[in-house]
Structures are given as structure tokens and as C-alpha cells.
């Protein structure tokens, strides 16, 4: 397992990760706390429940279908896109 910090890319911006952190935690730690807007009111959303229940923190990782940032463990080279 990687023990050295690494980076992921979030909408083109580099975000540092401590190995083992989720993508949501890395974003939150980097001061990015709103990374999605809602369908109807275009309201900003980020982490809320933090444990995979609320789906507020959805992101797309490496072009895949949206997943919960609070559950997805960040891996070196991950490219995250938000909506």
C-alpha cells in the first residue's frame, strides 16, 4: 500500500491526498466543500452524512458513473469531475 501522499485531479485542479482518504475527505481537507450543484435549484452540495447514506457528495471518477465521494477511496492519478 502506498504510504506517501499523492495527488488527484479534481476538474483539472490538483488536490493532495493522504493515503487511505476518501475523495470526499481529500476535497474537504483542501477547502473544497461544495462540488456539486443540484438539478432544480442549482444549490451547492458537498459532504453531509459522510457515510454513504445521503448521496449529496456525488462525483464522477475517471469518467465512470457518479459515485459517493465519501465512500470512494482516492487512488493516485484519479481524475475527478464534478457537476
Amino acid at each position, binding site marked *: 500500500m502506498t504510504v506517501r501522499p499523492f495527488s488527484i485531479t479534481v476538474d483539472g485542479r490538483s488536490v493532495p491526498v493522504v493515503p487511505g*482518504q476518501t475523495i470526499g*475527505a481529500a476535497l474537504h481537507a483542501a477547502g473544497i466543500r461544495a462540488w456539486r450543484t443540484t438539478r432544480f435549484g442549482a444549490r*451547492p452540495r458537498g459532504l453531509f452524512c459522510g457515510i454513504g447514506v*445521503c448521496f449529496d457528495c456525488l462525483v464522477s471518477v475517471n469518467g465512470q458513473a457518479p459515485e459517493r465521494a465519501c465512500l470512494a477511496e482516492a487512488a493516485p492519478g484519479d481524475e475527478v469531475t464534478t457537476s
Partner: protein
Amino acid sequence: MTYDLVVVGGGPAGVAGALTAALAGLRVALLDSSARLGGQYFRHTAVPGRTPGLERFLRQAHALSDRAEVLSRHQVWSVSREPGGDLLVHAGSPDGQAVAVRGRRLLIATGAYDRPLPFPGWDLPGVLTAGGAQALLKGDGVVAGRRIVVSGTGPFLLPVATGLAAAGAKVLGVFEAGGALGLARHPLLALGKAAEAGGYALSLARHRVPYLTRHAVVAAHGEREVEAVTVARLDKQWNVLATRVVECDTVAAGYGFVPQIDVGVQLGCGTRHDVDGSPVLEADAAQRTTVPGVWAAGEPTGVGGWRLAELEGRIAGRSVVADARRSTSGAAGVEVAAGEVAGVLSRRRDRWRAFGAALHRAYPVQPGWQGWLRDDTLVCRCEEVPLARIREAQELGATDARSIKLLARPGMGWCQGRICGYAVACLAGEPQQPPRRPIAQPITLGALSEAAEPGDDLTTSGPGNPDDLATSGPGNPDDLATSRADKPDDPLAH
């Protein structure tokens, strides 16, 4: 391969149940959605030490991984009954593939999640559930914010606030909506947990964190993130008496927990209402649900903390073992069955259950919170349903939560009512109903179509005769079941 027992959930209940069965020689598979075992209480490893019971849990988890199939990062979305009586547990694997695990018996140990209450601005980034802030801190080593307000009801607010303060956050206050007693006369004291209550009191004092009862955050303010909150002084019913504005960047709010019972409800397990009104799975003294071959342990049978969860898991494990022996050795199993609920374990369980019930009674959610909402306050975050639309549905004749849902759509989005379900039922003025979710986790259509024909090797191939469990385990299962618990090196021993 058909397992003797499949366990869903890798927290203290699931691990204790799985390990008890595995030590007795049963073939056990455990599925958990996380990367590491532990559930919401023990999973977190970023902050070492300190968590009571963690070392003990890690010993159990380690012992289990030697003796059972542990499938981490597997999200269980459904359990079905095969024509022959076996249970098929459907899950999504880490790479998105459909996996089906077949077992003769099932233990539901799926835990619980935070029960939030809506308030104006609660969907602003920076507002987290109390458990969310805790998970960030303990699981990821991330302090949720710099200036944090903790609000809600129940003793869980205390470890959250002290943890955040110890990690360097400025905790501006713990606002406990319930109880007028204050920390010096906290219910934990009355319940014989003086050391724990004293530890929190000391820690809050050291970090100069005010603890105010009959207070709560009733609104969050900000443009794109939280910039301030309105803190209200409340009456007994939680109606607002007076307010002030507190500048902060983060709110951690929680009003108790919601037991996760979807899998049990899917299988038709009977439910009952817990002391706090939560629907929970009905379980007998041996943790058997009303459906044959299905056990439940931990929060799905009623929220009561990790000690109770572990005890219930161990009792369920013993009962599973007895059931397995009955089915293989006939009459010889009767003797075991009589002792399947060991006296010491069940007495301890009853004590912790009483403790859990006392906490539920000490921290009820009072109806005044409904007055915190404005017409435009989102009740359902996913479908962005404001209070006004729910009231409109009621004016159109919706008298219960289900018809409100059909007319106004709260609970129809991604989270399937897990977050707003409690609030909508309260607004409808009806008791909490068990969830009706045919799929317990969102899955892809591809995975759903694959699940129709389980082809994964977990379900098909496998060594040995599934019926010879009495001889297939390590050593003599009787020895293991009866003597292990008393050995000092046993991971399940106290």
C-alpha cells in the same frame, strides 16, 4: 459454495456473530461496504488508540479474517430466498460487478445512520451530520472545519465535540436540544457511566467549549457555504424562545440514529417500534428474526451502542451454531440448543438494552422543531422538496407519509428517504413506518441483469459437502463453542 452463515455488516455485531460461528467450525462469509471492518464505530483508524474497545475489536476482526471469507467493499443491495431455502445475498463488488453469496443462514448486522432534522440552510455545504463529522475525523484524519458548532440531541454529541476540539477545531458550543440538567447531571452519570461523562466534561472544559441544554441550531446562513448559524434557546417542546447568531464555518448536527433494516424488511421479517419510535427488526432471545434462517444483531434490532451490538452478535452466533448442529446431527443438537442463549451473555445484553432504552427516554425528539422550518426550507434534499410542497400535498388530501411522497416526491430521490423519512413522517403526524425499498443500495442496470443469473464462483463451486459442517471446521466444534470464550487469549472473551 454454500456457506453455513452469511453475515451482512462488519461492525461489532457482524464480526462477533461471524467469529462465534467460524470458531465453532461453520463456514462463514461476511460482506461489508467499507474497505476495513469496524462499521461506523470501529472502522476509523486515522486517530489511533483512545476509542474504547478498539483493540479488542481489531483482535476479533483479525481472528475472523483467518477463519472466514471477508468480502470488504461489497455493497449488499438485496437478499433473495432460493427455492431450496438457501439465501442469496446480492452485492456489488469493488469493481462494479455483481456478486451473489449463497448461505443457509443470514445474520443482518447492518448498523444505523444519523437521524438529521431539517432546518433552514441545512443543505449548505459545511453542515454535516454529527456522524459525518466524526467519520471525517476518525476515518480520514480530516477536521471538518475551523469554527464548528455541534447541535442536536443525545450523548453522541459529546464524543463528536471533544474529538473535534482535541483535533484543533474551535468548537463554539455543544447545543443539546434536550434535557435541562446540564453536563454535571448528565443521564450518563445516572446510568453509571460517570467516568465517561466526566471525561467529556473535563475535555469540554479544557477546550473551553460551552455545553448548553435546551439550545439548538435552528438555521444556517451563507451564500455557498455556512457562514453563521442561528442558535435558539428552546422550551421543553423545542419551541424557540430566543435566538442569537453565531459565526462559524461548520455545523455538526445529529438527533439520534436510524436503524438500517432494509434487508430484513425485504425478506419479510417482522418489525416493531423501538422506545424512540424507530422501526426495528423483531428478534427473540436468541436474536432470531420472525423469518426462519434469518438472525439480526446490533442496531437493526434497536440502537444501543457497540457493547450491546457485540453481545447480540455473539448470542446470534451461538444460536446459528446450535441451529446448524440441529440440522446436521438431529437429536444431539437439542442439548446445544438449550444452551444457545448463554445466561451471562443474555444478562449482559439485557443490561445494555436497558441502558439504550434509558438514553432513548432521556433524549426524545420534541415536536417543536417543525416550527424551525420555513415554507422554502428543503425537507427532502435529494428531490429538493420544500415544506410548502409537503403542506400543499396535505391540503390536496395526503394524510400519511406515503401519499405525501407520491404527491410531493420527498424520499423519491437518491437516498430513498433515508435522510428525510423521519421528518416527513413527523410532518405527516404518523408513526415511523418500516422502509419499503426493493433495492437497499443503488446498483447499475448491468449489475441488476447479471444478478438474475448468479454466475459468480462464490455461489457455485466450493470444496466439501455443505452438510458436513460438524466435521469440516478446525478441531472439535464443541470444544470451541464451550471453552474458547473462557480462554484469556480468545478474541471474544472479556
